């Protein structure tokens, strides 16, 4: 079909309208609400209060703690998830008999929804660990999720458990795309296993690394359902992440305006961090 304005409108129009309706317009309305005080009741109009919500964020200790916790969580989980995902990919691309079976197994946690996952692990940490602790007397297994440290590692563990299988798939695709000729040429030149990994495999999977980093970074930063079901921010608000903090501001304390202001800040944070990350990673990729 020849390109003309009508077909262009026909194909792009519906998407543009949908995108406007469900993304752009709600975003703009949301930004407006962030300048208001509103309790969420449809029969009461939001009252415009200017920048007060944003000023309150600076003083909000809960939000600051949630930010620090989220940042720590993100750094740790990005490193471990990628490391483990990549190792699993190397493992299952070795020509072993059970490779396919292992791929399925490693990927499976990703098929379980976040809420369910949180409840399953809550049972493991609080039921199974506790029982092991009681039977063996090992203090390592006792009191999981009852303080900030075990709450933090609990969240990191389920994040790794869920995401590394997914990253493995991405890395497998990248590893299989490396031309055999390159590796063979390197072998003929006498490159050792590590030299091959360092100088051929790493640069060649760099695009996959960009994607994986982006996914884990954004997902860890925005983590909500596992946080809600595993610890619900407790104990004492010590494991409350940004998304959960915003959710509670809106739905528990019915401060919709303040929550919306937090959400705008949150959006800017996630957008800028991920953009910087993609920019840096892109520079390191090699073109074939």
């Amino acid at each position, binding site marked *: 079909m020849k390109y003309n304005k009508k077909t262009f409108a026909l194909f792009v129009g519906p998407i543009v309208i949908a995108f406007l309706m469900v993304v752009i317009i709600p975003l703009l309305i949301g930004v407006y609400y962030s300048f208001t005080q509103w309790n969420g009741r449809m029969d009461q109009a939001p009252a415009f209060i200017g920048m007060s919500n944003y000023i309150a964020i600076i003083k909000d200790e809960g939000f600051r703690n949630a930010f620090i916790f989220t940042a720590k969580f993100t750094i740790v989980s990005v490193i471990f998830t990628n490391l483990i995902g990549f190792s699993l990919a190397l493992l299952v691309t070795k020509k072993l008999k059970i490779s396919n079976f292992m791929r399925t197994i490693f990927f499976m946690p990703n098929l379980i929804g976040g809420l369910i996952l949180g409840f399953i692990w809550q049972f493991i940490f609080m039921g199974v660990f506790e029982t092991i602790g009681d039977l063996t007397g090992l203090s390592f297994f*006792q009191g999981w*999720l009852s303080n900030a440290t075990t709450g933090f590692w609990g969240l990191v563990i389920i994040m790794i458990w869920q995401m590394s299988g997914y990253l493995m798939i991405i890395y497998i695709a990248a590893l299989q795309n490396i031309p055999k000729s390159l590796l063979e040429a390197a072998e003929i030149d006498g490159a050792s296993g590590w030299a091959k990994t360092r100088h051929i495999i790493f640069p060649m999977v760099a695009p996959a690394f960009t994607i994986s980093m982006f996914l884990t970074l954004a997902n860890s930063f925005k983590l909500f359902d596992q946080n809600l079901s595993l610890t619900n*921010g*407790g*104990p004492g*608000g010590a494991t409350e992440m940004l998304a959960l903090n915003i959710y509670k501001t809106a739905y*528990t304390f019915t401060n919709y305006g303040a929550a919306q202001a937090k959400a705008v800040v949150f959006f800017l944070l996630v957008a800028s961090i991920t953009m910087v990350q993609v920019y840096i990673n892109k520079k390191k990729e090699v073109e074939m």
Partner: protein
Amino acid sequence: MKKYVKGMVLGGAMLLTACGGGTEEAKPVEKTVVDIFQFKVEIAEQFDELSQIYMESHPNIEINIETVGGGDDYGAALRAKMASGNEPAIFNVGGPQDVYDWQDKLVDLSDMDVAKKAFDGALSGATLDGKVYGIPFTQEGYGFIYNKEILKKAGIDPETITSYDSLEKAVKTIDSKKKELGLDAVFATAGKETWVTGLHFSNVALAQEFGSVFDAYNAKAVEFTYSEGMKKLFDLQIDYGRKPVNATDYSTQVERLFSMGKVAMTQQGNWAYGSIKGIDEELAGNIGFLPMPIVGAKENVLPVGIPMYWTVNNSATEAEQKAAKDFLNWIYTSETGKDYVINKFNFIPPYEGFDGENLQPKDPLAKDIMKFSKEGNTIPWVFMGYPTGWGMETLGVELQKYVDGQITWDEVLENAKASWAKSRK
């Protein structure tokens, strides 16, 4: 295919009757229709049965019941129902916020028989400016559920525990015999559940500070008048509670610890009876409530509250309002109604007139609530009057930090006071 045809025929028949209805002569007796919009899913079926019985003896009344509740949001559904123009004659309110929201729709029910028969204080949650807007559904209560067998073995007479001092003494005695009694600890304390600490526990002190749920709702500040006694009772539950307290949730507390006989007592309500019975029926038959004593306040008390009220809509016609009131009266005063309330709904009615042998609650926790309530040893539930989110997300969370040793008791109270004042300014 067969089913499909059957459906067609049925549908057609219904259509015909529906059309036919329009042309029929007006019925000899005009029926008064009472629409009920209620939230207690557990009794939906039994309530329907009861209304059938009522309609048989009152042929000119027609009762339609609609139930929305359980996992659904009754408040939102009620708003939608009201907005649709098809307003129910009878609906439910939960506490002061609801009464304020719906005040212009509510009929004063203080002249009703059941209102006069209600126990002291049972109406306070739905009374505003001296007008009674709600008729209580049932009572619920909580306190320290204790295992009679364990106390007996430890040589403690539960009847003697009527104050903080006697409770502390009993706890220490049990603690010293922990090994022979096979206990993990004296208490199972659900520190993970902020509703147990932030709402229910705090209510024991704050109910005595505020007096009623409406006073709490209107209070600009919380003082923690009984902070000393509150700290003592909280510390007792922590010091003699099974560790880690902050990782103990409802099911660990009730099912894994109390029902398995691993602890002697635990702070919970009569709703826990079902879970306990599900695990050990024998143990469940041998439990009761101990009071939650706050030093300096009334000590031998059980917090007993009304989770929900019946209300009558003033936009219904005079006849409908009267029929609605008659029906509500009938539920709680007629023999059939009373039988259903006790034996089918499993309610603990906060009304006089339930004295018959067959009109006693069957489970031991409900019996104890009746006992405390007849003796006047109850305090109200005021946590429905806390600022939104304050109980669970502020006080409950601060108490978790206290348990963890991060902050002192005074800091807990300061933070909670500041947050209360901020939401009520």
